C-alpha cells in the first residue's frame, strides 16, 4: 500500500494551479487538498494520476467570511476550522451540525470543506449540506470564475460538474435569518464512518407553520438527493407527527438505494424515512427557539 509514481506540483497561486491542470499530461491529473480521501486511494493504488496539483499553498482559497447575507467558506478551509468557527455556527447552523459527523478530529484537522464537496462521495456530509442549502459552488478555470448551483454540481457517483481544468475555490450559502433551525441526522455502523443514510434538514418557520423546508438525503443514491416532495409536503404546515410521516413517506417513495455489506436497500430506504422525521423535527424545534 504505497502510492504509485506521479509528478507533483505545488503552485503558489490559483493562476498557476489552473495552468498546471490545463497543461497537457500523459495521465490523469488530480487536485490534492486535504488528501483525506485522495491519499488513501493513492496508497491503495485505486487512483494512479500522472500529475498531482497540490493546492494547499493557495492562500486565496482560505478564510471564512460573512457578507451581504452570504457565508463564504474558502475551499481550503479545514473542516475543523469551520467546525469551531462562530461565524459558521451563526450563519450556517446546518454546516456546524454536520461537520463533527465527518470522520474524526485528526481527519477534520486536515480535511478541507472544498475537498469533501469536490470528492462528491454520496454518503458524505458536506455534499449533502450543499445540496440541501442550494449552495453556490464557486469554481475557477482558464476562462475565469463561474458559480455552479449545487443542484447542477453533483452529477453522479463521485463526479461533479467541475471541468478537468477547474478548481473549486469557495462554497457560498445564504446566511440563515431568524426562525430558522437546522439538523443533520445520520446512521453509521460506527462513530465517524460514512453513513448508511443521512439527512440534512433546515426549516424556516413563519409563526407556527413551515415557511420553507430544505431536506437532502445521503447514502441512498449516486449523489445526494434533494427531497423536494417532502419539502413541498411540509410547506405551509405545522410540524407534527402526521406531517412528519407524510413528508418522510413522500421522500422515500422515490428512493431506490443499493445494498452493500453495511446495509440493505430496504434498510437504507427505511432509515432515510426515520432520519427525515428526526432531522425535520429537530430543525423545526430549533427554528421555534430561534423565533
Amino acid at each position, binding site marked *: 500500500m*504505497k502510492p504509485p509514481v506521479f509528478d*507533483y506540483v505545488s503552485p503558489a497561486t490559483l493562476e498557476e494551479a489552473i495552468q498546471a491542470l490545463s497543461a497537457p499530461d500523459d495521465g490523469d491529473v488530480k487536485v490534492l487538498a486535504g488528501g*483525506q480521501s485522495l491519499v488513501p486511494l493513492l496508497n491503495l493504488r485505486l487512483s494512479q494520476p500522472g500529475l498531482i496539483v497540490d493546492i494547499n499553498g493557495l492562500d486565496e482559497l482560505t478564510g471564512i467570511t460573512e457578507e451581504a447575507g452570504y457565508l463564504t467558506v474558502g475551499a481550503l478551509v479545514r473542516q475543523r476550522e469551520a467546525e469551531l468557527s462562530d461565524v459558521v455556527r451563526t450563519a450556517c447552523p446546518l454546516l456546524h451540525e454536520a461537520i463533527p459527523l465527518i470522520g*474524526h478530529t485528526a481527519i477534520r*484537522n*486536515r480535511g478541507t470543506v472544498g475537498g469533501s464537496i469536490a470528492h462528491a462521495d454520496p454518503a458524505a456530509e458536506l455534499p449533502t449540506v450543499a445540496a440541501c442549502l442550494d449552495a453556490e459552488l464557486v469554481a475557477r478555470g482558464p476562462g475565469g470564475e463561474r458559480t455552479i448551483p449545487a443542484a447542477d454540481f453533483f452529477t453522479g457517483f463521485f463526479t461533479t460538474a467541475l471541468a478537468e481544468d477547474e478548481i473549486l475555490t469557495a462554497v457560498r450559502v445564504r446566511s440563515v435569518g431568524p426562525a430558522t433551525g437546522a439538523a443533520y441526522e445520520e446512521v453509521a455502523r460506527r462513530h465517524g464512518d460514512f453513513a448508511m443514510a443521512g439527512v440534512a434538514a433546515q426549516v424556516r418557520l413563519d409563526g407556527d407553520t413551515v415557511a420553507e423546508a430544505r431536506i437532502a438525503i445521503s447514502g441512498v443514491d449516486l449523489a445526494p438527493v434533494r427531497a423536494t416532495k417532502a419539502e413541498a409536503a411540509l410547506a405551509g404546515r405545522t410540524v407534527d407527527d402526521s406531517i412528519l410521516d407524510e413528508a418522510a413517506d413522500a421522500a422515500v417513495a422515490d428512493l431506490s438505494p443499493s445494498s452493500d455489506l453495511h446495509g440493505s436497500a430496504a434498510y437504507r430506504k427505511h432509515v432515510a424515512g426515520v432520519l427525515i422525521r428526526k432531522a425535520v423535527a429537530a430543525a423545526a424545534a430549533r427554528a421555534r427557539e430561534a423565533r
Partner: protein
Amino acid sequence: MKTREITVTVNGRKRTVTVEVRRTLADFLREDLGLTATHLGCEHGVCGACTVVVDGHTERSCTQLAVQADGREITTVEGLAGPDGELHPVQQALRDNHSFQCGFCTPGFVMSIYGMCEEKKAGRSVPCSRAAIREELSGNICRCTGYQSIVDGAEAALAGAGSDTGKDA
C-alpha cells in the same frame, strides 16, 4: 518532478532532506528519519496509529505526502519524553492506568491524547466526560484493550494529574 528537497522541523530539530514526491509523511518519518515510533496500522486513514502533531494539530501521517510537510513543524511520540527519559505527563497517566497491552496502537493514542491536552491548555473547551473522551478517541483503533483503560488514562491526563492506581515495585 519526482523528488523534492524539503525542510521540516521534527521534534524541535530542523531537517533538510530530498524525498520522492510520492513518499508518505509516515514513511518519511519512519524510513528516512528513523523515527519508527509512528506506526502504520492501515495506511488508509482509519486506525490512527500514525497520528502525529503537525503545526499544533493532530493529523494522520499516512494520508499526507512528505513534500506537504515542507516548512512545517512536527511532533512525534519520540518528542514527548524529557531529555532524561522522564515520561511526559500524558505518558505517565497512561502508564499509571495500565492503558495499553501490545503497544502497537499506543503512539497514535498518545499523540491523540496529547493533542487533546494541548487544546485544553490552549484554552479551547475540550469535553472531558468519559463518553466525550470515547468519542474523541474514536479515530484510534486498539485491538487489545477494549479502550476502557485508555479512557482511564486519557481522563487522568486531561485532569492534569495521573490518578495513580498502580503500585511501584
